[in-house]
């Protein structure tokens, strides 16, 4: 059913329709509306689940770890400092192969305190063993959460999924969406059946000591599963797309890249703005396109390579940095192209940190400057006056 809805409330509604048994979260803006919405649905008797109030994000992550280990579908949501406080448990959840689904309302990290959108928070846990999805709009955010549960709980995968949605730009925005009906989700998403779970009648230990004789194998096993997850994500996305009658999810989405000489690579809501700029520049005869990375972990090497191999110029526009080194996605794409042989000129651009607004003019600047090689990442829209001190 089509409706005009706030991003956070849309996610609360779709999570409820995925029927989690345990929800735990600690409020942090701009995520709060999501779990408030879920708490209300439970209080109103519309969702049968246990909402566990906790004193911190570390505890929220621990509760969903425990719930998932007990064989229950779980959900949590957080942002920024909250995700950082969860970080220890985030690694535990992946190491224990628990299919938790978490929404990260993407927001900058302190200091200075900044509540606005960028991708630094979830980038800090990119190496943790979680699958990462990033949504361009509220519709995609809805779809990716449903796909997330199916992928996470697939017995071939059994890994947690983080769905990144841009704080404010999507969480606090109202947009027209096609909300899937309960029957459709029930049909698509079967009951969660864990491979092993905590059960007093059949006691098992989970997450115990992994000495040097076994530890490296646990990491190799996750890496192997990550590679297997690529095709599972594609298959699950296709199955879901067929059910709802529109293409959604998947690994990457290329927009007007077939004959493009210049391609910007990006994740999240900025892709929408780039698509508008691409259309405008195409009208003027410029061969430009944009590649959206939907699935960032596992990193879809083949799909990214196929999309970029014939381009002359590639710009990676990121809302996250790795201070003292190249930005995360740029580094991965540069390494990928070097290994596989195609040699477009690849440059790195930092944009929109801490919620700095990203105008079409800034995107045009990237398209204009991407054929000029620079050794270091270029920061778009810097206020030089602020740098003088």
């Amino acid at each position, binding site marked *: 059913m089509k409706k*005009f809805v706030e991003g956070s409330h849309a996610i609360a509604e779709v999570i409820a329709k995925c029927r989690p048994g345990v929800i735990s979260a600690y409020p942090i803006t701009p995520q709060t509306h999501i779990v408030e919405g879920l708490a209300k649905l439970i209080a109103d008797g519309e969702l049968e689940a246990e909402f566990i109030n906790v004193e911190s994000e570390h505890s929220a992550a621990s509760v969903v770890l425990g719930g998932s280990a007990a064989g229950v579908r779980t959900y949590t949501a957080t942002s920024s400092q909250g995700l950082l406080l969860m970080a220890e448990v985030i690694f535990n959840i992946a190491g224990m192969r628990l299919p938790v689904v978490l929404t990260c309302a993407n927001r900058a990290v302190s200091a200075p305190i900044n509540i606005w959108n960028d991708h630094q928070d979830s980038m800090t846990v990119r190496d943790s063993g979680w699958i990462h999805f990033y949504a361009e709009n509220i519709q995609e955010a809805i779809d990716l959460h449903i796909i997330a549960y199916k992928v996470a709980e697939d017995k071939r995968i059994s890994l947690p999924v983080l769905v990144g949605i841009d704080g404010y*730009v999507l969480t*606090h*925005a*109202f947009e027209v969406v096609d909300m899937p009906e309960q029957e459709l989700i029930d049909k698509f998403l079967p009951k969660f059946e864990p491979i092993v779970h905590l059960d007093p009648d059949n006691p098992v230990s989970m997450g115990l000591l992994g000495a040097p004789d076994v530890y490296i194998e646990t990491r190799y096993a996750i890496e192997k599963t990550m590679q297997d997850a690529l095709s599972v994500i594609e298959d699950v996305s296709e199955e879901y797309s067929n059910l709802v009658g529109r293409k959604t999810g998947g690994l990457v989405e290329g927009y007007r890249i077939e004959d493009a000489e210049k391609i910007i690579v990006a994740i999240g*809501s900025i892709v929408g*703005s780039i698509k508008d700029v691409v259309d405008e520049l195409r009208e003027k005869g410029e061969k430009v396109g944009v590649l959206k990375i939907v699935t960032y972990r596992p990193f879809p090497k083949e799909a990214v390579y196929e999309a970029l191999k014939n381009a002359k110029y590639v710009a990676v526009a990121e809302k996250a940095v790795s201070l003292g080194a190249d930005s995360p996605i740029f580094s991965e794409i540069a390494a990928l192209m070097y290994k596989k042989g195609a040699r477009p000129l690849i440059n790195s651009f930092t944009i929109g940190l801490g919620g700095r607004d*990203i*105008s079409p003019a800034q995107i045009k600047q990237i398209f204009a400057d991407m054929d000029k090689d620079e050794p270091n990442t270029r920061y778009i829209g810097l206020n030089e006056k602020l740098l003088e001190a």
Partner: protein
Amino acid sequence: MKEVRVHARAGQGAITTAGVLGSAIFKSGRYSYAFPYFGAARMGAPMNAFLRYDEKQIRLRCQVYEPDYVLIVDKTLTYGYDCFAGLKSDGVVVIDDDKENLSNYKLPQSSQKLFAVPASRIAQEVIGRPLGNTVILGAFAAATGDVELEHLLEAVAERFSAKGVVAEKNQEAVKKGFDYIKQNY
């Protein structure tokens, strides 16, 4: 595509204003995207909400710099802030003020129009609180003809559906704002 910028203070309902207008636009079969920008992220601090709408889906995510329409929920924001910045040459402004005070406002271009409607006062009378957002929306519908009164009333009913009589009072406020413009301009 049309773009709207709402000027208000945090807590005055700017997001609700943009959201209700977006919802009314949606009811007419168009697409809309409403979103806020919090300045200091504190109650009372100046903030903006924005709305874009079009016949096709909105993809552009930046703030609105060249609005077709500006809605000013709190007239004190015109002191020290350029609320008319970037307003299109055929742009329209709706502000919470008495019509007698129209001469207080100097629009950058003579082709632009400003409509003052005593929204807070009407809201105080109708709703019992000086929150003029829904009055301004009614005035917007009358001033621009870009949204149907009927769709606004439906959107208001939905937005305040959980609050019973508040929905009816806000519908009344929308109508008063609409009528004020029709009768006074």
